[in-house]
Structure formats: C-alpha cells, structure tokens
C-alpha cells in the first residue's frame, strides 16, 4: 500500500448527500477479478451519457477537476454495499482523499486498506470547503496527515481527528495482514481455548 503523508490538489465538490457505492461504481463493473483499472468506471452513471460520451455537467468532467485528488462530498458518503471496488475506483482515478461530514462504516474502513484518507469535518467546515472547491483551479487544499490538518487556499486551517492506529498504518503504508500474523501465537492460544467449546 502506498503511504499517505501530504497531498496538495484542487478539491472537486460533489454536492450530493448519501452518495452510495452503487453510484461510485455500478454493479456491471464488479465482475472483474482484479483490483486495478476501475478508474474509468468511477461514478459511471453520472459521468457518462447513455451513448457513452461524457456528461459535461458532472464535476469530474469539468476542466478544473479532471485531475482532482481530493473529493469534497455531502453527508454519509459511501453508504450501501461493502464493495471495495468503490475505493479501488476512486484510487485508480487518482483520488487519495475524500472529505465529508460522515462516512458509512464499511466504506470508511475500506479506504484505509487502500491508502485513501477519508476526513470527517463539521457541517460548517464542509460548507466552507464546498466554497473553496467551487473556485475550481484557483483553489487548492493541502492535506497534512502527520499534523492532521487541511490547509485552505486563503491560509485557513482545519484540524481533523483520526484514529492513531489507522493514521500510523496509513503514514507508513503498512500491510494489516503482516501485522496480524506477528500475533500468530495469540491467535493459536485463542483457538486452543475454543477447543473447550465443542460446538464452536
């Protein structure tokens, strides 16, 4: 996993609440057996017209946001299905950070497994970030994970909270499975105790 330290980018505003994972990546793209290559399918039903051409109204098709690495979105981003194809598609498109007031649990979790930083802010902070984002290429945000800050285009700074363990893994690009396997003896001990439960 690619470590996440700092990120400077124009943020793209997606002013929709309850963006669900079907919206982020529709079902027809879930038949892949790979993790990569899903960027072109990101937000497919909003991004493309029925004939396959781009919908010029959709934010990521507008010149200022085509290379955005930060997405600013309405409440409860990533609700619905557990599909990790959603963060895979975001990552493949180039988005490394999503900012919202809240995230669905499974999506939130999935982001950290893929080097994407989901940031929770207050509704007032989100409104201000939407305003920044709507200024297009005239405005950039800088995310500093170590210091847990978002620096705005006018010098303003927002501090965000993050679980220390998740932060540590993201900063260092650590592989969860490797870390857990180091605790193999504890898992063995638990399984030994389980043997007393014949039914389990």
């Amino acid at each position, binding site marked *: 996993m690619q470590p996440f330290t700092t990120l400077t980018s124009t943020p793209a505003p997606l002013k929709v609440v309850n963006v669900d994972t*079907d919206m982020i990546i529709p079902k027809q793209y879930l038949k892949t057996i790979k*993790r990569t290559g899903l960027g072109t399918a990101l937000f497919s*039903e909003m991004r493309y017209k029925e004939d396959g051409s781009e919908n010029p109204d959709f934010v990521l098709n507008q010149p200022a946001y085509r290379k955005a690495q930060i997405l600013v979105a309405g409440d409860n981003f990533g609700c619905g299905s557990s599909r990790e194809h959603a963060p895979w598609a975001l990552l493949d498109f180039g988005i490394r950070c999503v900012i919202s007031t809240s995230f669905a649990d499974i999506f939130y979790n999935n982001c950290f497994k893929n080097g994407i930083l989901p940031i929770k802010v207050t509704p007032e902070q989100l409104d201000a970030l939407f305003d920044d984002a709507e200024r297009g290429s005239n405005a950039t945000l800088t995310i500093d994970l170590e210091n847990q800050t978002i620096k705005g285009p006018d010098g303003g700074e927002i501090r965000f909270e993050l679980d220390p363990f998740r932060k540590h893994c993201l900063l260092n690009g650590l592989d969860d499975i490797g870390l857990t396997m180091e605790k193999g003896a504890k898992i063995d001990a638990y399984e030994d105790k*389980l043997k007393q439960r014949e039914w389990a």
Partner: protein
Amino acid sequence: MTATKGPQTLYDKIFDDHVVDRQDDGTCLLYIDRHLVHEVTSPQAFEGLRMTGRKVRAPEKTLAVVDHNIQTTDRSKGIQEEESRIQVEALAKNAKDFGVEYFNELDKRQGIVHIVGPEQGFTLPGTTIVCGDSHTSTHGAFGALAHGIGTSEVEHVLATQTLIQKKAMNMLVQVDGTPAPGVGAKDITLAIIGEIGTAGGTGSVIEYAGEAIRGLTMEGRMTVCNMSIEGGARAGMVAPDEKSFAYLKGRPKAPQGAAWDAAVRYWETLRSDEGAHFDRIVRLDAGNLPPIVSWGTSPEDVISVTGAVPDPELIADEVKRASKKRALEYMGLTAGTKITDIPLDVIWIGSCTNGRIEDLRTVARIVEGKKIHESLDYGMIVPGSGLVKEQAEAEGLDKIFIAAGFEWREPGCSMCLGMNPDQLKPGQRAASTSNRNFEGRQGYRGRTHLVSPAMAAAAALTGRFVDVRTLG
C-alpha cells in the same frame, strides 16, 4: 478475556468473548468463527493469498457459495454471460485450491449467502460471522455478531481468522406493540430506517428488542437485521431464544447431541443484562404501523401506503433539498402524488431480505386463484435458495405463482442488484421486496419502490400499490 465491567449488552458480551488481542488505543484483534464467501468480493482476496504464499487459516470455518452473478433461468448449460462465468469459475477454483467447502450453481443447497448460512446451521448464536457483503447483518437475527467487510478484510480473515476492529457503540431499537394483520418485519425495518435515517446507525451495533421483535418468526427477524446496514449500522442483532434454537436444531452444520445441549446452555446467557448501557435508544410502536413504501432513491425515503410523495422544497438544507429533488426526478414522481396512484411495471419478489419460505407463503396466500394485473410488464419470484425452492414446490406454491402469471426462477440475488440478466429497463418502475432503491440498483435508470412481500403481492393484482390491511 472480559475487559468490560458491570452490566453488559449482548454486543458487549460477544465482542469481549472474541478479543484475541487488545492494543492500548482500544484497537482489537477479533476472532472470527464463521466466514461466508461469494464470487464478487473474493477473487482479489484469494489472489492476494497466492501472491504472498499464504494459506486459508481455517478452511473448516469458511463456506463459499455462488449467488450474485448467476442467471435464474436454466443453468444446465452453464453460465451464459462470459464475465460472470469467469468470476464464478474463479470462486470454484479458489475454493478447490484452498480447501474451502463450496456450493456451486447446480447444488440444491446453493442460494443467497445470507439465506444459506442460517439454513445450513452455519450461522449460530454467540458467534462472529463476516462476509464480503453488507447484508451479512442478516445473521444477527440469531444473536450472532455479523457484519459485512471489504475484500482486503476478506483476505485478512482468510489468512488469520481474525479482523482488526474497534468497539462500536451500542444502540437499542425497542419495537413495542403488535402489528396489524398484513403489516410485518419489512414495514418495521423500513419504518426504523425512515426514523433514524440512512446514517442513523453509523458507528453502532443495533440490538432489536421489544414485544414486536419477540413476536416475529426467525424469518422476520432476519428481514429486520438484514436491513440494519440500510440504517448505517455495523450490525443488527436479536437475543436468541427458543425460536432461534428451534430453527437451528437438526440443521446440517448445527451441533448435535451433547454438543447441542452445551451450546444451548451457553446461548441462553446471551442477552443484554438488566441496566446495561446503550449509547442511544430508539422506540417504535408497531401497533400503529401502516404498510410502508419507499418513494425515493435512499431507503430512508419512506412513507405510509396511505400517504403521498413528500415535497422536497420543504427541506431547509440546500444540499439535502437538491439531493431529494434529484431523487424525485430520477423516480419520475411529483410531490403530492398519492402512493396508491403510482402505476407499476414490474413486481419483483426475492432477495436476502425477503426470499425465504415464509415470504413466499405470504405471497401465495394473497395471489392464490388470482391473476397478476394486465398492466404489468411481468412479475418475477426468485427463491432465496435451492432448499427454499424445493420447499415451496413441495407445498405447491410454484403452481400458485405460475397460475397467477408470475415467472418462477432459480435461486440467487437476481434483480436485487441486477448483476445477472434480471434487470429493470430504463424508466421501468418496480415494487420490489429487496433492500436498496439506489439509482440504477435494479437496472440502469430503473425505478425501485421497496415494500414487503405482502405489499408486492397485493400490488401485483392491481398494478398499483394497495393497502394490504384493506384486503381482509
């Protein structure tokens, strides 16, 4: 292993019982007793194991089944769609290579993973159950701690039989009263989501309690727990009782003999203690509950069948107002339209929410001897598993459905998410017993109204929504 002192909730007890390791910051390594695997969210996880030379730590605690991709028509000549076939073949190969038990598309035990687990007795009270599928919350109906995980976590569980978790908050949803005839589990769960909102349960595990929940059958409790995720909750659960034990006894993977007796003694302790702390309590009176219909593109967009499409202009928040206006536009509805005036094109009955035998019996009682309305494009019934199908056919339900004009299909997820050929066409409007009315969920530009099986059956006869309480 217990760290929490004082009275505990059901969730506290099961969580504590499964802690393998607890870090100072509260991050825990949680042991996973049961892992269900399907074809869509597992190929990249098995690929990860291959790339790192890792094995499945506990194949005997892992069960694989195909459900999302397969066609619900004749399967004897294989899976027709190439990408779907490749994904299904990948699961078959992965199961074989890693020594995991697998129910393929021709096995009569095959079905939707969340119907198969309980049916086989793989799902047990007091266990931790995960699956790369958000509707894993279904299994909480038995008093298990069950939730969906992403593919990276599927790989983590395959490799280590554990999951890295932090304790969630405890939320109690107390449902009192007795619902009117025709009103049931689906209406209860839709009403709860309408009340708390689709993010209302975020960061929480919900325990459902109260007279109305106790009164539900296991099938009904599974319907309620299934949709916990639609309210944003990590998991939903109901304390196990005699109904849970009776459902499980004698199932192929349930304990037998002395092990069964020991298990029941333990399972009987699985309830929230008097005075246990809940971070949030929500109450609902099922006695006054009408049948519920969704009108928008989020499961929180619900209203009584006796109501009308709400007006988004009345919402103060700009982004929310715009989102709900977008939902009405997508659904092709105007504010103020009575729910019973909405004409339908398709009736779809099935899914891990409502594809069990009790759901099919309810539909059969309503449509027996009648015909689905001529204005409908079609009505489709998809049993949740091969065993549900077999049971339905043994009871003659298939004949009732076919005589009424329904299509009677092979088991799977089908049009709940339309990964197989069962999809709505653009603009088609469905009454669906599934769990999500998201944009494009049941087919590109398709329009979904979530309802109970009874409401879907009644709508099939008239081509529009009817208050099932008036059917007598």
